[in-house]
């Protein structure tokens, strides 16, 4: 018992000293469990996030935009792969994680349960959704678990590229024809509030924060991160000449921050619980990919085994 406490204290001391925890190091069971959950959910978000944007690949308006979007969605697949591998170091398989996703046991970022209805949504997602993701993820580059922190360093570089690409799409639309400007405004209207929800519930409704701070998964609270995102994003919206759909939005000189209106938390929880506009479609798409791919993965395995067997046969024959 006292030995256990001792280990935990030493473990925490390492984190406090800024050391990285590596997969083979001793770690409290709860640390392992929390990281499996968080990293796999992050991976799922990357993968499910491919769907709303993938929805516009075949309809991208120019070759340059098509190639940009294809490359972006491909990057997200790479992020997913990288994060699944990081989670696997903690003793869970990719297969188990995928099952958790399609059975609804594991969550993913709720933003991807909203539909992409126009080309401008591709711009809005890059600008706002990748933008919000960066704020979360920059913080995670200094988290205590080594594989996760390293994955974030690599991923953040690409996310900032996505964010710039998205903003550039929006800028083009905002400076375009009246139809294009209306398309951009409509996308902002639909994605603004869900983007703010990406930072999670209000601090007073967010459990686990204290533990997360101790393990450096969190260095700032949900509300602090949300505020940071709003403060960065409002001038960008102004530069575009678009209107953020929040009548209460106002610069507060005293606080040095923007004040903003109340988030619709009922909508937030509804989407989290699976009742968002596209939850069913997203899970159905991942389930179909998994089921359609089952025979392919089996074939690859069988072929590799046959090849191995032939190698052994050859060796023993010699």
């Amino acid at each position, binding site marked *: 018992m006292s030995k256990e406490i001792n280990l935990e204290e030493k473990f925490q001391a390492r984190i406090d000293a800024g050391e990285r925890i590596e997969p083979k190091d001793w770690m409290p069971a709860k640390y392992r469990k929390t990281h499996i959950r968080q990293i796999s959910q992050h991976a799922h978000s990357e993968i499910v996030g491919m769907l709303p944007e993938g929805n516009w690949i075949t309809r991208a308006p120019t070759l340059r935009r098509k190639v940009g979007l294809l490359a972006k969605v491909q990057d997200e*697949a790479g992020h997913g792969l990288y994060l699944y591998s990081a989670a696997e170091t903690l003793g869970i398989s990719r297969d188990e994680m995928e099952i958790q996703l399609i059975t609804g046991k594991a969550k993913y970022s709720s933003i991807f349960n909203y539909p992409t209805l126009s080309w401008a949504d591709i711009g809005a997602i890059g600008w706002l959704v990748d933008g919000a993701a960066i704020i979360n993820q920059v913080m995670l580059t200094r988290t205590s678990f080594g594989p996760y922190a390293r994955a974030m360093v690599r991923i953040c570089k690409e996310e900032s590229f996505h964010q710039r690409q998205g903003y550039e799409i929006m800028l083009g639309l905002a400076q375009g024809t009246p*139809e*294009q400007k209306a398309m951009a405004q409509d996308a902002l209207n639909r994605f603004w509030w869900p983007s703010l929800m990406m930072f999670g519930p209000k601090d007073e409704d967010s459990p686990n924060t204290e533990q997360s701070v101790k393990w450096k998964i969190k260095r700032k609270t949900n509300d602090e991160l949300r505020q940071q995102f709003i403060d960065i994003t409002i001038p960008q919206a102004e530069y575009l000449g678009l209107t953020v759909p929040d009548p209460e939005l106002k610069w507060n000189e005293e606080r040095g921050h923007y004040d903003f209106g109340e988030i619709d938390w009922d909508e937030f929880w509804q989407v989290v619980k699976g009742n968002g506009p596209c939850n069913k479609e997203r899970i159905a798409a991942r389930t179909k990919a998994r089921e*359609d791919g089952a025979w392919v993965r089996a074939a690859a395995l069988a072929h590799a085994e046959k090849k191995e067997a032939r190698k052994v046969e050859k060796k023993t024959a010699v």
Partner: protein
Amino acid sequence: MKDQLYNYLLMLGDNSMILGHRLSELCGHGPALETDIALTNISLDLFGQVRGFFRYAAEVKGGEATEDSIAFLRYDREHYNCILVEQANVDFAHVIARQFFFDVFQELQLKQLVESKDEEIAAIAVKSLKETKYHLRFSSEWMKRLGDGTEESHERLQAAVDTLYPFTGEFFHETPLEKEMKENGIGVDLELIKTAFDETVSQIFVEATIKMPESKQRMVKGKYGIHSEQLGFILSDFQYMQRAYPNMEW
């Protein structure tokens, strides 16, 4: 001559464009993340080739033409791709068989185009050839995995080959335009390509334990702008934005 070169560039670009489109439909839906990434990569390479051919075509055509006006604003009858590349993503076996047949042909075609008297075409071919060699390695490996994998994968691949192989004859049908391009040293000799194509395909079939289909080659005329019923649907997706919102910058 200008018109002929322009049309020849369309023919070269359209195969890559329509196949690139088919692969792009799969992005996010692949059988595993690794294959999803690989197929998207191939799609990206193909669109890169399209941009090479169409930028040059725009130059040749002159006036207001751009890579995008050429890619997005032609009617179905003005597309000259082979029918094979517009075939649907029925299952992964169809995706692989379609890719394999195209890659074998395309690698051989590009090898000759590297020597084209037209320097622009030769330059595009040099870059594309490198990519296509990688594509061919990917699709050949999967031919072997599926053919010599499980009973189910073997059956699926054989079915895909039986359906798609009869479209490959179109690659080697020489149109008057291709004949002219061959004779003036810009284009390729399809007869030479055919011999090498048959060799590679039979060799991979053996390794993949796939039987050569007995069915006859299909009567198809994609190179003359007469397509399968599928192309119209591809184009209504592909051209949607440019048609619904004409004359805008994106």
